[in-house]
């Protein structure tokens, strides 16, 4: 596809359940980022991938959060034992040059 895609677009889950969020970056983009955006807030950095490795995981809020990337392409963000404070829009972005980032439409997660 022409842009960054994310799935699902919306996810409603019960507290305590695990969720997986998927990101398909632009083909050829080696850098991939996950951000979280809470209602009325700016973007909060979660994790950065260069290729399949994650040199910066400093933004992951707790050990319930993990992410992986395979084939220097698709990335999955997993949240275990979801809590209500995890409710947010999760945004993925990719970049070829580290300075121009392209964002996906986000996954809106609601934890009941």
């Amino acid at each position, binding site marked *: 596809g022409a842009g*960054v895609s994310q799935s699902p677009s919306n996810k409603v889950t019960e507290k305590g359940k695990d969720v997986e969020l998927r990101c398909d970056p632009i083909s050829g983009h080696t*850098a991939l*980022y996950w*951000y979280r955006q809470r209602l*009325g*807030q*700016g*973007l909060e*950095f979660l994790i*950065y991938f*260069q290729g399949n490795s994650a*040199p*910066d995981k400093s933004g992951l809020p707790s050990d319930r959060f993990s992410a992986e990337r395979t084939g220097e392409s698709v990335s999955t963000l997993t949240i275990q034992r979801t809590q209500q404070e995890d409710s947010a829009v999760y*945004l993925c*972005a990719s*970049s070829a040059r*580290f*300075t*121009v*980032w*392209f*964002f*996906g*439409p*986000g996954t*809106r997660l609601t934890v009941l």
Partner: protein
Amino acid sequence: QKEVEQDPGPLSVPEGAIVSLNCTYSNSAFQYFMWYRQYSRKGPELLMYTYSSGNKEDGRFTAQVDKSSKYISLFIRDSQPSDSATYLCAWGWSGAGGTSYGKLTFGQGTILTVHP
């Protein structure tokens, strides 16, 4: 002190008005400056990008950077209803030692409404 402070708004202006959006930052390591526009239920899209102090113009949009004051602004001339969105300022830096992955720090966003 937050690394990035953005005028919270919201702003509501009539069509044709000049809009000024402002952010300040505290980390002097920031090297490049961006403005993103985010429509409701969409991901942010890059509007303007600059490395240096001064003004950069692109159509109706002008980004102004003052590194000495750690202040950036976005001006929108002849605002249109289609400009109604959330505007996010962002900063990045390349880092030292080859770790130049350009992690961005964002302001909290300003909601702009341009009414006909």
